[in-house]
């Protein structure tokens, strides 16, 4: 393979992992926009999406589509439970308290996953086999196509939800101004619950579609979660195109970094980008700085 073929290969695989980061990032920004919380447990929803699918497939021998549906349902239920038990009752919600509670939630979920399923790494077979598709000299797995497809679908679904349904519009209103939203009769608490439900569902989708590519285990949530957050930060915490682009930029940079520099430092790329963005342009790279009224 010459350099340009290699580059295309890196771009393709970067695009695929980037789509996953975008999905996870959307989960972050949906909750952030509805509540102002950065949910450190977001990565655990991704882990659950993969692990529950594995569990249904291998232990209960349920066919893949049903296993996936089950995984999404269970993860969403965990998200709902988390909001009801840990987020809603908290009285003095300073940012530090919320950070600590969501971190507590994340290690609790992770610990329980370890308790139930052990520490082994599991694989899910590709949804449509493992036969690579050749594009020029670069190869693409069928799973990559699944990833592109599902990500596009998820993004379109969220777009439709936020722009064309009453609940979606209500959630946008809450994000814009929770007080005003509650004054016009929107149930803000329900919208917060909704945001957790949607994010956990979205996280679980990311979890089960990436599992065939990267394997899954109880502790994949930390890294995937953080990278999803990084995607959301690049995109300025928007719950739309910004985060998607952020995810893809991150995925491609990471893949290029891994291929051209060193695979060991691949994970560091995301965090260096994260710090640089936070230091230089905390509003993301697509948004203009807004004059904020203190």
């Amino acid at each position, binding site marked *: 393979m010459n350099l340009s073929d290699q580059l295309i290969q890196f771009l393709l695989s970067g695009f695929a992992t980037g789509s996953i980061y975008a999905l996870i990032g959307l989960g972050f920004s949906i909750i952030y926009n509805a509540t102002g919380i950065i949910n450190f447990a977001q990565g655990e929803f991704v882990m659950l999406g993969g692990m529950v699918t594995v569990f249904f497939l291998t232990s209960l021998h349920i066919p893949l589509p049903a296993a996936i549906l089950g995984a999404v349902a269970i993860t969403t239920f965990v998200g709902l439970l988390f909001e009801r038990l840990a987020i809603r009752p908290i009285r003095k919600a300073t940012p530090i308290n919320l950070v600590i509670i969501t*971190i*507590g939630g994340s290690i609790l979920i992770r*610990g329980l996953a370890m308790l139930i399923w052990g520490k082994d790494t599991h694989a899910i077979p590709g949804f449509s086999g493992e036969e690579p598709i050749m594009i020029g000299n670069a190869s693409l797995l069928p799973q990559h196509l699944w990833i592109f497809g599902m990500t596009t679908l998820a993004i379109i679904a969220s777009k439709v939800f936020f722009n064309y349904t009453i609940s979606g519009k209500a959630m946008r209103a809450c994000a814009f101004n929770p007080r005003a939203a509650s004054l016009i009769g929107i149930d803000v608490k329900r919208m917060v619950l909704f945001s957790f439900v949607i994010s956990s569902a979205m996280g679980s989708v990311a979890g089960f579609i990436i599992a065939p590519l990267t394997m899954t285990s109880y502790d994949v949530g930390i890294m995937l979660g953080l990278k999803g957050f990084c995607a959301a930060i690049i995109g300025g915490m928007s719950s739309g195109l910004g985060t998607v682009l952020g995810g893809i930029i991150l995925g491609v940079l990471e893949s290029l970094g891994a291929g051209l520099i060193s695979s060991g430092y691949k994970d560091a790329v995301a965090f260096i980008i994260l*710090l640089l963005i*936070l230091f230089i342009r*905390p509003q993301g790279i697509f948004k203009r700085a807004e004059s904020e009224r203190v």
Partner: protein
Amino acid sequence: MKRELVKYLLLVAAAVSMPYFFSDGYMMNVLVFVGINTMLAVALNLLLGFAGQISLGHAGFFGLGAYISGVLTATHQVNPWLAMLIAAIAVSFLAFLIGFPILKLKGHYLAMATLGLGIIIYIVFNEAVDITGGPSGLSGIPNLALGSLVFDNDVKNYCLVWTFTIVTILLAVNLAHSRIGRALRAIHDSEVAARVMGVNVRLLKVQIFALSAFISAVAGSLYAHVMTFAAPASFGFHFSVELVTMVIIGGLGSIYGSLFGATLLTLLPELLRTFQDYDIIIYGLILILVTMFMPGGLVQGIPSLLGALLPKKKEGRG
């Protein structure tokens, strides 16, 4: 002020008497780690409890202290005491530089940024194999020594570590009761009012961040020389969360609370041997429950919880 002195003398007396109670090496060894974790928890509490700034990357500073000290002594034969000093100064200098951009961030963003910083440091420990030995660790780190007294067994290490721990607590308590401590608590309560009172909030936060990193690096250096070994696994995200848990349990802004939190969280896994790796579940529960129901930490929380549960005798009707 008198009460502070009494508390402190009690602590010193307890620390001095420990070797007489526990003659076996195992308990002494555990107490060495209690001491190191106390230093770390106090360091983090200065930042989290007093200045109200979270850090999820403190295990990184701890690890840098351990590795800088370890590499200098094991690979370059530098005197261990000098290595400790170099490590502490280098790490606090790094924290000072990175503190300016990082502490401009608030709340969730600060948490994410410090977490990212911690993970970058962790990745470097793993990947810079030529320097750090990679995932399998760095061995052959010499013990500290004073003349012919080499700190090479559990009791000696206990004395060494707890000397540092007790000095750290004293300095932290002094700081808490000074103009710096007041300014920090002021930032916590109302940042805008603190600024109006002429407190240079930005600089002070960065200074405390650097001080906190300094203490963490000293603890790391002690750890390296006591263990004569350092591996990345001890300095990951998990340990940063454990440190935050210690501070939360002990109560934000309470120095002796941090001592309590560190003691509890170091002893807990030892006492509950059967739990092994599952202590992580307990930490998660503790973090959630204490933050939700006992914002002052267990030290304040349990008595007030009991007070609320027990029937109040003096308050009658009418």
